[in-house]
């Protein structure tokens, strides 16, 4: 699809814009509608658009497979470690009070970290699911299975 001029031009304009908007939504989640999930989905959608136009190999060179797999787990780890940090510093699990001096700043810091973890996990999981579906056809053809349309079983 990279030969289609209209698609390439529109994509070159849209993909960085969508990624930037995803980052904006992530970090402005406290002031406007947004937060971790929306940001993660937007970022993954930008990558999926890139893959649809330039191919899966190029997409995997931009964000390698290992990075996607590890970031999916790192996001949840970040979330849980923020919670455990609360316990270590003297409060309850996921208590943001002990993190910083003033209570309001502590809550805000905790919320930003936690939403970032969620955003990273959601983005990498959506990218991973898409590329599993995209690679399945190549895997099945390598194994010799035909992927025919409906076979008649009468």
């Amino acid at each position, binding site marked *: 699809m990279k030969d289609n001029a209209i698609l390439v031009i529109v994509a070159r304009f849209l993909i960085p814009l969508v990624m930037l908007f995803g980052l904006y939504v992530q970090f402005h989640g406290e*002031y*406007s*509608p947004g937060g971790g*999930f929306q940001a993660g989905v937007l970022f993954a959608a930008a990558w999926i658009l890139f893959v649809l136009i330039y191919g899966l190999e190029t997409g995997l060179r931009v964000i390698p497979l290992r990075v996607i797999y590890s970031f999916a787990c790192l996001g949840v780890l970040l979330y849980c470690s923020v919670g455990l940090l609360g316990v270590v510093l003297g409060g309850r699990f996921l208590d943001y009070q002990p993190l910083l001096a003033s209570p309001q700043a502590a809550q805000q810091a905790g919320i930003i970290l936690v939403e970032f973890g969620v955003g990273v996990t*959601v983005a990498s999981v959506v990218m991973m*699911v898409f590329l*599993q*579906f995209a690679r*399945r056809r190549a895997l*099945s053809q390598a194994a010799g*299975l035909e*992927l025919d349309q*409906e*076979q008649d*079983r009468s």
Partner: protein
Amino acid sequence: MSALSLFNYWAVIGLMMLGYYCVIVRGNMIKKIIGLGIFQTSVFILFISAGKVLGGSTPILREGVSVYSNPLPHVLILTAIVVGVATTAVGLAIAVRVQEAFGSINDDDLDRLGYDSQDEDAA
């Protein structure tokens, strides 16, 4: 209490029954997953419409607004939407595997083919 004030629930019930019909009648697995999606979104509408306050606005604090809609259903539905897409993804992956193993994802075909393929593997 007039019936007209309950119209949002009627719309929800209509959509829910559509999704329900799709899940139980259509044999194709992917159609069933789409029907499940329709069912899920109808439940979201139920919760969000229950949380709305007439004359209120989006639950984000700002100047000049005094009445806000209830933020609690929004939080529930946010989680529910993400869990819904997770289940859709896993369901579609299962459908792809079933298609590869049995050659079809229609209910009636799977009833017929289920036992045959097991005999084939054992042979």
